[in-house]
């Protein structure tokens, strides 16, 4: 959930530009400049990747690019730290299993 108003920080600028990204095929909106992880969290997506052997879910842990628990495949590139990578228009974000793999981005 985006925090649109805040007692100390005020309202989110109404003029803030939005971009659209695709998360496992689902299109979601995000504020420009927001990290991918924040955009996912805003729409309630919490599981970002699955472990290699047991396919256990993993999500945000440290939120500042240190722990690598939030890695996903972004535009075909695996192991992208979503908490420190900003969203971009048309970005394709996919759940990563294990270490992921490099492959061509499917074109619509």
């Amino acid at each position, binding site marked *: *959930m*985006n*925090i*649109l*108003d*805040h*007692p*100390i*920080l005020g309202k*989110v600028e109404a003029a803030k530009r939005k971009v659209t990204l695709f998360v496992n095929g689902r299109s979601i909106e995000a*504020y420009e400049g*927001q*990290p991918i*992880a*924040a955009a996912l*969290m*805003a729409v309630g997506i*919490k*599981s*970002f990747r699955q472990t290699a052997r047991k396919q*256990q*879910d*993993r*999500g*945000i*842990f*440290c*939120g*500042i*690019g*240190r722990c690598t628990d939030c890695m996903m495949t972004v535009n075909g590139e695996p192991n992208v730290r979503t*908490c*420190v990578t*900003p969203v971009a228009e048309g970005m394709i974000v996919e759940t990563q299993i294990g270490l992921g793999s490099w492959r061509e981005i499917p074109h619509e």
Partner: protein
Amino acid sequence: MNKVELAVIGAGPAGLAAAIEAAQLGVKVVVFDENAQPGGQLFKQIHKFFGSREHKAGTRGFRIGQELLAQTEQLGVKVNLGSTVFGLDKRNLWVLKDGRTEVFQTDAVIVATGASENALAFKGSTLPGVMTAGAAQTFINLHRVLPGKKVLMVGSGNVGLIVSYQLMQAGAEVVGLVEAAPQIGGYGVHAAKIKRAGVPLFLGHTITEAIGEHQVESAVLTKLNGRFQPIPGSEKTLEADTICIAVGLTPMMELARMAGAEFKYAPQMGGHVPIINDNMETSIAGMFVAGDVCGVEEASSAMEEGRLAGVTAAEYLEYVDGIAAADRKALIREQLSAIRNGTFGKAHPRDEVKEENIYGLKSSGTPSKDELDSCPGVPSKERLAKGPVAVIECVQEIPCNPCEQACPRGAIKVGKPITSLPQLTENVCNGCASCVTACPGLAIVTVDRTYDENKALVTFPYEYLPLPETGAIVDAVNRQGEKICSGQVVKVRNNKKADGTVAISLAVPEEYAMEVRSMAKGGTK
């Protein structure tokens, strides 16, 4: 080969303060930081800092960050962002930027890399929804996204207490605060804020399990015995979608270690830390450290340490002579020791917890009757009967004095050391409430027992949304966050100078004048 006169690694409070101090003395400084934005953790700190005027007390952390950035810009300090320093020896830095490595040769270096949050292992601790308190703080205050609706906080140090409060400000419910020790770890006033909001404290408890299939759905707490062992059968389950871990920090000292600085193990400082002298100088000539990397504290002391390292580096580089440097360093050291003089400073490593010492604020988040009765900021019954007056419920030694400067009549005195409890000169105070919104700990209210024949007026600080309308009837709560009566909102003062801290005046039945200390968030419980 790139040449740098003074390299500062880390653009957080310590690094920026160091860069500013050195640049002011003429040193050509270059700052490196791996993040896309400078400021370290400062821009997530939306609460008002403790300290004295020199420490920017009463100013919210992110505003201090803005000031530091403006100063670095003004002084022409170069800040290289997105630049990860991954190698350091006596004279060289290896920097990774945009996938390419560059080497910088430097005459002196200040390592201000900060600290990282500790993890806690328990069953289910890897489930999505379990995150560090710092992560939650980053998402709510920087990215403006709520990680969950019902949050359980693990750890009652200042991070756990402050982030709990900020989660509530952002719109989440904090379903509980868990602490293994029998007492609250952080400042009592921070605990009092979340207590007034009705957050249950589970002292002497730990989290033993996070339950959920793909993400956290609930958490199991277990009571601990005197030897910190779980007591079987004492488990209770709380519904939560987010579990925040605030169990301390560890200095990120890898670069200083790699460079060959001598180290010591100091658990009270967070782990392995470089050995330094009182100039922030490591065992390597020309290598200095500042901030959490040399012992976990907080932003105010990190900035002072940064300044100290900045002067010493300037002296090392011969931009300032020994006498001038000594004067400046003495001044900074004095401010640093003022900050550390309180209950939590480095000068006072936390003592073994003795049971007889756990009472009142520390054990419950609520000052006890004894603590309030002996508090020099609480006026006498006689004075209360005469009309509006401040009630300063500040019972714990904190290095903080903005209340002193806030009072236009000079009725509040903290003096030196700044950890002294504020004293109220009750006959000088006219209950104007200037101090109510100035206190960073939100520990001051004004009470007017003469407001009406059978009504008293209580004015308290409030930092939640939505603000109540004048005339509205709301639930008045006590220090424990329990609804004790209804009250009518008489005045809502949202003074720009108070920077988001609103003074709300509530008319309540006279007999509750010394009990009502806030209102239910949103008006009703």
